[in-house]
């Protein structure tokens, strides 16, 4: 693999990690507050649909993004209602939400667009365009030179290649998702809200007796989770792709969950885990089979690797993954 190819694989890694990262941070907020969420997938999916649908109807991607977030928030609210208000089983609620999203998106898409559960392709302002950073070689330079962009890049210096391919030219949501990592770390460990949120995931009774509303905190966490999942879904449909197709999340919500466990519920580790899983995806997408030391690794193994790694982590062979103590348990005062 030459250097430029490597840069391009990493570039693709960044693109593919972004939805994982957003969903992973979403899960982090929820689970740190003691609400397990296997419904990340469903929230992403519904957001992908509504963002694409509204962007297609209005031609405005920002309206699409808002609708995606709103729809994801509705499902998050449902999860909150089931698992916080009615103290239901959080896992079952998550399963239900995934099914609900899988069904309702196609149902509505078919009703609105009659395109077999798709939205129309997004054009122009209906999509998040790549952001060209200053001094990067991009489409405009190629046009000016009258030569293909790939040639210009191939001739550029390695530094310029990294800058133009890897760093520049992503959609605004990519940069946003990477910024979300330090922001999450700061919120969790530097603010009052974060302290309380972590506390409610460890011992809700301590929070309750300190005079803080457990229900309020948990709903806030679930809400943040909804917003982040909403952005993740919108990214899929309006930035990575140009429209919604059914089941387009394709298990990314579960990979994000796996990354969350892999990261042991810590923001910076979540970034590394998502980049790793994104890299695996990028490799699996780009190469049908990969030769490592003369052994050809089937692509199926590449695809399964995030899940296998997560099981290994869960098994505690690489340090134990201890979830927030109160996670998964509804807070019940009265037996």
């Amino acid at each position, binding site marked *: 693999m030459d250097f*430029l*190819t490597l840069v*391009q694989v990493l*570039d*693709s890694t960044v*693109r*593919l990690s972004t939805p994982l990262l957003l969903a992973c941070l979403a899960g982090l907020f929820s689970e740190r507050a003691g609400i397990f969420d296997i419904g990340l997938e469903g929230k992403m999916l519904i957001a992908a649909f509504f963002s694409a649908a509204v962007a297609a109807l209005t031609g405005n991607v920002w309206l699409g993004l808002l609708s995606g977030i709103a729809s994801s928030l509705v499902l998050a609210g449902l999860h909150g209602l089931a698992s916080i208000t009615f103290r239901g089983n959080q896992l079952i609620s998550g399963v239900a939400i995934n099914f609900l999203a899988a069904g309702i998106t196609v149902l509505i898409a078919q009703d609105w667009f*009659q*395109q*077999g*559960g*798709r939205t129309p*392709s997004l054009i122009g302002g209906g999509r998040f365009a790549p952001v060209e950073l200053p001094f990067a070689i991009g*489409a405009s330079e*190629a*046009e000016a030179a009258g030569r*293909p*962009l*790939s*040639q210009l*890049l191939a001739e550029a210096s390695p530094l310029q290649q990294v800058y133009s391919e890897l760093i520049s030219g992503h959609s605004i949501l990519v940069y946003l998702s990477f910024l979300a990592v330090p922001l999450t770390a700061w919120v969790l460990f530097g603010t009052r809200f974060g302290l309380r949120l972590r506390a409610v995931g460890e011992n809700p009774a301590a929070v309750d007796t300190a005079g803080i509303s457990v229900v309020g905190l948990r709903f806030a966490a679930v809400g943040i989770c909804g917003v982040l999942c909403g952005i993740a879904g919108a990214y*899929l449909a309006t930035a*990575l*792709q*140009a*429209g919604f*197709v059914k089941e*387009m999340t*394709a298990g990314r919500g579960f990979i994000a969950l796996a990354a969350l466990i892999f990261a042991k519920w810590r923001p910076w580790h979540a970034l590394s885990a998502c980049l790793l899983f994104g890299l695996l995806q*990028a490799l699996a*997408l*780009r190469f*049908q089979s990969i030769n490592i030391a003369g052994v050809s690794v089937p*692509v199926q193994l590449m695809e399964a690797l995030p899940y296998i790694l997560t099981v290994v982590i869960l098994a505690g062979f690489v340090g134990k993954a201890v979830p927030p103590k109160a996670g998964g348990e509804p807070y019940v005062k009265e037996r």
Partner: protein
Amino acid sequence: DPAVIFDLGGKFDKSFNEAAYNGAKRWADETGGTFREIELQSEAQREQALRRFAEAGSNPVITMGFGMADPLSSVAPDYPDTKFVAIDVNWLDGENLRQVSFAEHEGSYLVGMMAAMASKSDTVGFIGGMDIPLIRHFACGYAQGAKAVNPDITVVANMTGTTPAAWNDPVKGSELTKAQISQGADVVYAAAGGTGVGVLQTAADEGILSIGVDSNQNHLHPGKVLTSMLKRVDVAVYEAMKAGTDLETGKFTMGLAEEGVGYALDDNNAPLVSADMKAAVDAAREQIIKGELNVASYYADNSCPALSF
């Protein structure tokens, strides 16, 4: 009434199934007739759909894609009075079967020529859907066409996957397109069903040309799609419906001569297709029809003279 069973990609895949849908719709519009239809959601549904339509008296029952071959082989004998049309299948036995296949390599040859003529980088790409002989058949014709124009041209070929999901994975289509662009390709041909949507989209975004497949996809990105390799599934479906119960059974191959395959030229891509290009392609078409030019078929010995997989 006739019935159509669309394959997993769904009838609005802008490609293979949509072509069938257009054919059926044309028949319905012209005759005022009605037809039944279903879009398959899973493998397991294939047989149920076949039986349900046959039991309900639909005739003929038109099926899309090679995936229906196996269910057809077990269902068709149970309903001897029903005629079944199998598109993209030509290896079954059965009295009541009409098997229609296409000479995709011939059409692909033509668009391969156009790709080579349009390429400035002397590199063209091919992105297939599921890695099966049928798609290799496409790729092989394409590579032969490209090499006929420019023997030194590089043809980069990738397949999206090995399962039916490969027909519907625009994200992967998009990533593969980016990879091919980085390898220098400036024209990519997508023979990948719904995945092709991602290929064409990315090609348009990145400022290179693309080639659509099955249906005329030129309109998806006007001025960015060089042409589309037409596979006249719509004609096959339309004719089957028009013949109705009098449908002739047997095996049929639709090639350039039968206008079963071809390339698309319309307002959307007219500025991209130069007169030279058109002349060269049309000449090759004539030669193929007359038998003066032989495009090697991948099926002949499961290998391709112009491309290795």
